[in-house]
């Protein structure tokens, strides 16, 4: 048995598929190398078999065994606290709204905290989402108020109301802005004066290329992210950068965003993700 039947064109196609999905050069080369080895060892003869193997290897890389549940239940007599973080415009506020919708549908009492006091009309946007899904929003009516204070107030409200979950929306910030990242760390520390932060969701836009890994690394360092929400998967982008992120940081993708509406949120599914990636 030989690999003669698998032409260079097949390997080029495999490589290109992975690169086009934003998987990145390193994971792509690694996958192709693994596949080549498997083909040699197992003596596969046709491109169909190679593609099936590729699917298998990718699913393995994405790791279906990771725990992807959202921590959103009361504990120690206090609400669960969730922070939503990420760079500008990725879909944080929208994702907060959608998560609120899911939790309210499960009969949970949710409070939103509008700790983006910077961007024009950010608090209004979150309050609109709150009204839409039946959640009260704690906000400051002052532009440029201290975001940590708003977050503190939101968690306090959640504790007083014996809510199940408090979700704190934060301003978009680029990971290379040290002062803004410090501010984010401070928001978390101020919240922790009252309650532990159980979940820190990094929102990542599926159109993001290789910079996504840098984003995840820095946010993980500053606020210890516990999960990723991959948004805008309803477009043509595949979001392959999350594969490298999961591998390097061990932080699972928990949710995917599939549109601008309140119901356009789904749990992450490894098989489905890989199917779409190779499609």
């Amino acid at each position: 048995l030989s690999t003669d039947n698998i032409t260079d064109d097949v390997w080029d196609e495999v490589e290109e598929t992975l690169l086009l999905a934003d998987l990145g050069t390193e994971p792509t080369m690694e996958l192709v190398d693994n596949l080549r080895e498997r083909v040699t060892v197992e003596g596969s003869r046709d491109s169909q078999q190679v593609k099936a193997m590729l699917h298998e290897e990718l699913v393995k890389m994405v790791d279906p065994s990771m725990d992807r549940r959202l921590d959103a239940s009361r504990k120690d007599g206090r609400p669960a606290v969730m922070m939503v973080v990420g760079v500008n415009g990725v879909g944080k506020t929208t994702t907060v709204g959608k998560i609120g919708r899911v939790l309210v549908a499960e009969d949970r009492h949710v409070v939103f905290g509008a700790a983006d006091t910077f961007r024009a009309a950010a608090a209004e946007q979150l309050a609109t989402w709150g009204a839409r899904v039946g959640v009260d929003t704690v906000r400051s009516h002052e532009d440029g108020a201290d975001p940590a204070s708003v977050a503190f107030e939101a968690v306090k409200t959640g504790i007083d109301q014996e809510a199940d979950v408090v979700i704190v929306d934060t301003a978009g910030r680029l990971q290379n802005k040290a002062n803004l990242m410090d501010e984010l760390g401070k928001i978390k520390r101020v919240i922790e004066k009252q309650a532990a932060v159980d979940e820190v969701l990094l929102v990542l836009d599926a159109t993001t290329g290789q910079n996504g890994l840098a984003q995840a690394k820095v946010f993980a360092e500053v606020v210890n992210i516990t999960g990723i929400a991959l948004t805008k998967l309803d477009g043509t982008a595949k979001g392959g950068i999350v594969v490298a992120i999961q591998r390097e940081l061990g932080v699972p993708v928990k949710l995917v965003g599939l549109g601008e509406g309140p119901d356009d949120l789904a749990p992450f599914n490894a098989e489905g993700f890989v199917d779409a990636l190779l499609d």
Partner: protein
Amino acid sequence: MFNSLSDRLAATFKNLKGKGRLSEADIDATAREIRRALLDADVAVPVVREFIGHIKERALGEEVSQALNPGQQVVKIVNEELVAILGGETRRLNLAKNPPTVIMLVGLQGAGKTTLAGKLSKHLKEQGHTPMLVAADLQRPNAVKQLQVNGERAGVPVYAPHPGVSSEFEDPTGDPVQVARNGVAEAKAKYNDIVIVDTAGRLGMDAELMQQAANIRAAVQPDEVLFVLDAMIGQDAVATAQAFNEGVGFTGVVLSKLDGDARGGAALSVRSVTGKPVMFASTGENLADFEVFHPDRMASRILDM
């Protein structure tokens, strides 16, 4: 190990004496390094392929084989080619002979359109123009309010007859096409010489919303349609740019969030695939963070030099 392309190419050429022709193998090794650097910078795969083909041709020529330092010579060639592509035909905004000049902003969700509307209006006001903003995104929650705040900060009037989606008005009311059309009429009546139309974010594959954008364009006959693109975008840049170019048609590109540390290879992709010039760079969240696009800086950035 080797961080920059220059370092990696220097290593590739380490065993070369700099005399005689480069072998096919030398060229291939060089091409691989360049390819890798461009892919790491998010330049789109098909664009990389074409670019590499071109570089290979030049690298086979005399200028490389006779150079004292072939690695540096190749980097120089790559850089030159990048600048040539990125910089071809840079130009200023087209202003209408009969005001108002109409500028329409389009792009994916969250790309930076509404922020850019504020920046552009501030910039143009400082040049002595009297711009007006038009709120034709009635869909994203509180987009209208966001534009109004930006207009206030820039000291520029905002035409916003409909509040769009907000907590009091959960369902969009009003027609973006009508708003855009009336906005231009309003500007004429009030002697504003530039109209900037903010539109909702949309996906390239969303046929319905793309048609809406085309309808807005047809209604206001813009002098410029600026496609706002997030510098962090990866391989999707090609599909998205093509979809917007075919669906609504744009005249120029604005690269946003260049204050980040993304390498921004999408600039090259969009330029190569659509032929439309990158005109401006958006470099921050404040309205003053806006500049003319510099092809040479972009080339160095893509190559991480």
